[in-house]
Structures are given as structure tokens and as C-alpha cells.
């Protein structure tokens, strides 16, 4: 199950989707909005998405994870629009027969979402706002190599 929504995310909705009698573990990640960046108070976060492509990429990540870990389902929900401090911006729920795969798959899902899903985050402070810079990582080896080869 994939959901991209401007409404509040309910974690129970996502964990219940991956519940199976064959699963011994459900691992759920909740991404929540933090109230500070480098000591500066953050009022809200704003998430902007390229909706159509984001839904496609979320589904791709879901399929990737299911194939790699032999999972029946992965449920992902991402929030768009303004998200108040302490609210949930991302839910990833993974059900697996054993917990080791569940933990690993959930972690990888969050990392992959941050790499390939076209969603951007803006921190709003009392005295302005800032588009969060991407962490330095490669999202596909081919793309980064191509950027280096084609640049200049």
C-alpha cells in the first residue's frame, strides 16, 4: 500500500495492512518533524512533492523491498504540505516472518525513499525559511557517474 497525502497519517492503518498470520514481526518506522535545526527553532515543515512521479517512485521502492526480502507487503505513507512539529511525515510498515529481515527492510526502505522519491522539505523558522539540503549520497551509481561525465 502506498499513500501520498496532505492529511494526517495514522500509523495503525499501515501496520494493519502488513499483518499476516505468516508474519512473526511487524517493524514500523515513523518519521516525525523535529523542532530544531542547529539550535534554530523550527515552526513547521513544508513538504512539496512531484505527486505523480512520487507515487510511482514510492511504488518502485515498495516492489524493490518486497522482492529483495521476499515480503508479502510493505506499506508506505508520506505526507505533503505543512506538517506541524511533532507530527508524522512518513510511515513505513514492514511485515516479515522473522524480525531480522523486518528491521533491515524497514531501514533500507527509509533510505531509498530519501534517495529517489521526488519530495522536498522546507523548514520554516520565525525569521525565515530554508530548503533543506540533500545529504551527500548517491542515488544511483549510473546517474552520478553520468553527471560527472557530462558536466562542464
Amino acid at each position, binding site marked *: 500500500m502506498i499513500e501520498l497525502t496532505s492529511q494526517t497519517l495514522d500509523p495503525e492503518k499501515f501496520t494493519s495492512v502488513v499483518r499476516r498470520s505468516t508474519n512473526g514481526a511487524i517493524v514500523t518506522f515513523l518519521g*516525525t518533524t523535529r523542532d530544531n535545526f542547529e539550535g534554530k527553532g523550527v515552526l513547521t515543515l513544508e513538504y512539496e512533492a512531484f505527486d505523480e512521479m512520487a507515487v510511482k517512485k514510492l511504488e518502485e521502492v515498495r516492489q524493490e523491498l518486497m522482492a529483495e526480502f521476499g515480503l508479502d507487503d510493505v506499506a508506505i505513507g508520506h505526507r505533503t504540505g505543512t506538517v506541524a512539529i511533532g507530527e508524522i511525515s512518513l510511515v513505513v510498515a514492514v511485515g516479515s516472518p522473522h524480525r531480522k529481515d523486518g528491521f533491515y527492510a524497514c531501514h533500507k526502505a527509509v533510505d531509498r525513499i530519501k534517495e529517489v522519491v521526488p519530495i522536498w522539505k522546507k523548514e520554516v523558522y520565525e525569521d525565515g525559511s530554508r530548503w533543506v539540503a540533500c545529504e551527500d549520497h548517491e542515488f544511483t551509481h549510473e546517474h552520478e557517474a553520468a553527471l560527472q561525465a557530462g558536466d562542464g
Partner: protein
Amino acid sequence: MTLLYFAWVREQIGRDAEEIALPADVQTVAALLDWLRSRGGGYASALEDLSVIRVAVNQEFAAPDHAVADGDEIALFPPVTGGAPS
């Protein structure tokens, strides 16, 4: 050709989308970015540092040498930062 802009690229260019007639000599992503930059103003400042620009052609990430054609949908945006706060 449809151009879509997101995040600070959208803010600096000053619009979230536009339709353009693709010049005949613009045939790759790299050429399109150069052509947009040559428009000056917000285009030049948004596209000043191409290392922080990502491009999707018809909703698939595309390298600078990827072909572009009339009828394509091209999206320009910064590296993605969704998911969980770090």
C-alpha cells in the same frame, strides 16, 4: 514540451510550469539546461550550479546526455529531501 519546476528551482524561476516550443538544436537534457540558462534572470540563477539540479524526463531520472523531444515532460528540481528528517 512541458517544463515543471519544484522547490527552490520553482521559487527562483518564478513559476511552477510552462509550455515551450523546443528549439530544433536542443536534443539533450544538457542542451536544454544550457538553453534555459541563456534566458537569464531567474533561469540563470536557478540553474547556476548544475550539480544540485536533478532532471526527470517523463517521470524518470535522466542523465545530461538523455535525449529530449517535443511532447516530453521535463521536471527540474533539487536533490530529493523527503523521507524522515535526519
